[in-house]
């Protein structure tokens, strides 16, 4: 069996450093397997989040060789093992310990977003009829596993630390899921422009590139939302039209 070196970030809020661990690697292993092995044999108190080990829960986000990834879905055979593999916590969030960060900000942001508001039921049985093709667009957004990797790479949050002004790609996807939901009659466009800060996104598409669920965050969620905002607030004709019809854009 071959061995490889894993350079893992160890430490707490106050201080930290990389530490090298040698571990045996076998066919088919993922990074999370190695982390568990190291935890079991060499570093019992190593902090790491995980649950499903199958890319479904979005707990095990980290930066592997600098790339934001799910540890449970990153096969070792996709990494060069002749030099140390670095494993670090996400950078856009406050560090707690080892590979674990404080992601509570995300939960607070979610609370700001006005919740789902369905139109009255219209089928005789008190429910709704919805065509499959109308659910598909939104199902793409609802695949989100809240791994926050997109939040981690977005420069508005990561470099510019504008957490107060910008909700980040994950929550723009969430707003898109609500706004494009075939039953929803809520209106979040004003919030998008103001407190959600959609204007701060300059469509670099870094978020889309890292999404493990393959959600086309920018093309399918953010850009259409931006268009809706522009239509509503910057196009005088449609603004006038809205005053008279008071329908949802």
């Amino acid at each position, binding site marked *: 069996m071959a061995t490889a070196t894993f350079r893992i970030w160890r430490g*707490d809020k106050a201080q930290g450093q990389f530490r090298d661990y040698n571990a045996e690697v*076998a*066919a*088919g*292993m*993922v990074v999370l*397997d190695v982390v568990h092995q190291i*935890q*079991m044999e060499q570093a*019992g*108190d*190593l*902090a*790491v*989040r*995980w*649950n*499903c*080990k*199958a*890319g*479904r*829960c*979005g*707990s095990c986000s980290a930066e592997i060789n600098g790339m934001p990834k799910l540890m449970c*879905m990153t*096969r070792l055979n996709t990494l060069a093992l002749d030099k140390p593999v670095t494993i670090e916590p996400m950078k856009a969030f406050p560090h*707690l*310990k*080892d590979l*674990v960060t*404080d*992601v*509570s900000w995300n*939960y607070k942001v*979610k*609370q700001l977003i006005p*919740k*789902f508001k*369905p139109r009255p*039921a219209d089928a005789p049985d*008190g*429910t*709704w*009829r*919805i*065509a*499959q093709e109308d*659910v598909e667009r*939104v*199902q793409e957004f*609802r*695949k989100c*596993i*809240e791994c926050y990797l997109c939040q981690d790479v977005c420069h508005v949050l990561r470099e510019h630390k504008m957490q107060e002004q910008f909700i980040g790609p994950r929550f723009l996807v969430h707003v898109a899921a*609500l706004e494009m*939901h*075939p*039953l*929803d009659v809520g209106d979040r466009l004003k919030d998008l422009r103001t407190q959600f800060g959609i204007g701060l996104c300059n469509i670099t598409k870094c978020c889309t590139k890292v999404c493990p669920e393959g959600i086309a965050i920018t093309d399918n969620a953010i850009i259409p939302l931006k268009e809706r905002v522009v239509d509503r607030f910057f196009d005088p004709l449609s603004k006038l039209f809205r005053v008279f019809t008071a329908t949802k854009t």
Partner: protein
Amino acid sequence: MAEYLIHEHDVLIIGAGGAGLRAAVEASAAGVEVAVISKSLLGKAHTVMAEGGIAAAMANVDDRDNWRVHFADTMRGGQYLSNWRMAELHAKEAPARVRELEAWGALFDRTNDGRILQRNFGGHRYPRLAHVGDRTGLEMIRTLQDQGVHLGFDVFMEHTIVKLLKDGERIAGAFGYDRERGRFHLFRAKAVVLATGGIGRAYTITSNSWEYTGDGHSLAYHAGAALMDMEFVQFHPTGMIWPPSVRGILVTEGVRGEGGVLRNRNGERFMFKDIPLLYVNQTANSEEEGWRYTQGDKDAKRPPELLTRDHVARCIRREVREGRGSPHGGVFLDIAWIKERIPNAVEHIKKKLPSMYHQFKQLADIDITQEPMEVGPTTHYMMGGVRVDADSQMSDVPGLFAAGECAAGLHGANRLGGNSLSDLLVFGQRAGGYAATFSQKNSLGDVDTAELRSAENWALQPFERKGSENPYAVQHRLQETMQELVGIVRQEDEMLRALDCIRDLRSARERVSVDGNREYNAGWHTALDLYHLLTVSEIVTKAALQRKESRGAHFRDDFPEKDKQFGLFNIAVRKGANGAMQFSHEAIPPMRQDLQQIIEEMK
């Protein structure tokens, strides 16, 4: 002096999966103060992993379906050990609970006329599982979570409860620690709902996460509540088996529901070889008829691949043992073959089973649209749990409720796929409602500070000991013991050996020591979880020794037949006054006449 933070609520809900969140939504709606606690982050509980769907007799796809059929299917699946009142409530209320999710924003796949689509699943007579591709659990937990965040209940994420507290006979709260800093917390509450899920971490090969250490089962047991049906552990027939690092990860039954077939190394559809008596009238006579069933032909009967999980798991084990297994010790599950039958099968598979497609592609380099998967049984679900009142979900301890996987009753000897998610909704709602009512009628109980001090000392022992045992290694030994000696096929001498091992591991646990400090220390957490895992492992083994027959998920090599006498009671366990486990046989109350009649009609 014990140092801890104090929180007071009317209703405390331990667990933030489907059951816990549904209970929280209900209790909050009743206007009481609610707190929800979970070991992981919000939205990451097991429920998020559920794939196939939610069983509810909405009759959107086949109008012959109704609650009576669902009731009969559940009772048959549970080999008539289920609590019939729970099975009745569940079958009747599940459709409303699913529609409610839709009203809260869940977007299920649709029928041609725009209603919620339902799919076939093992043991369900008609297509009954409301679903979203193969990520139904995600849709469910996210919907409940998003509904919940606007209701204003308190959420304590990454907090672990280590002890329930009582005032005399009744519940008074719970004691635990936060993972981030290792501080202790006292949660005082008028009512407590356990919604902690299962025990799958007691086994090596499992679809379950680190959270499933049987905490709720053990907390309730040590608080004096009865547990029931603990011998019934479900082994799902299809887990991944290769490469080794993914062993146990679930392959949804939805694959078979969509037409996937099981074959041995000789290419034989071995499931046709052994069809249990209870199901002969409902099983296809030919491969052709089975295929037609999966494609919605109402006159066709289901293929044997969709028999109950216990049976399919044992057939797979037999094929492997008798030398007809696949290269890595499983059998083949083939969905790619449907390209012989339908056009653009590749697209169809990717659309119906997107997560499965990805899971195999990414983790095993297998393209399931082109080649068969290798699968084998994996520990999946705990039928046994806290014994509760069917209507209110209250346990023997006044004010202590339980719902979801940690409660017993609905599933008897074997759970049908899809019946868990519906269980969470139906009984989560009930538990939340009744707990709220209980809290309105009772005041806060008193807490004994000496008890808190000893709980705290107990929890800190692993730091103080200079013992020689590593918590992960002890857990691993326990898992191997249960896997080998109390697994799919059991026999007395092996289980007695398991009890010896468990006794040794108990004393090993007392020598466990951990490094580092109290902040987010995984080794410490594992050491504490071990206590629960050992408690439930011992109970499972002892209950399994008592049931000298084979029924549902419990199969004894030394008693391979079903025994009528054992169909008359559930095995329960309580903690005796002297601290010893006391087992009892609880007679199943005679079924109400009208329900009896349904069973007869549906035979």
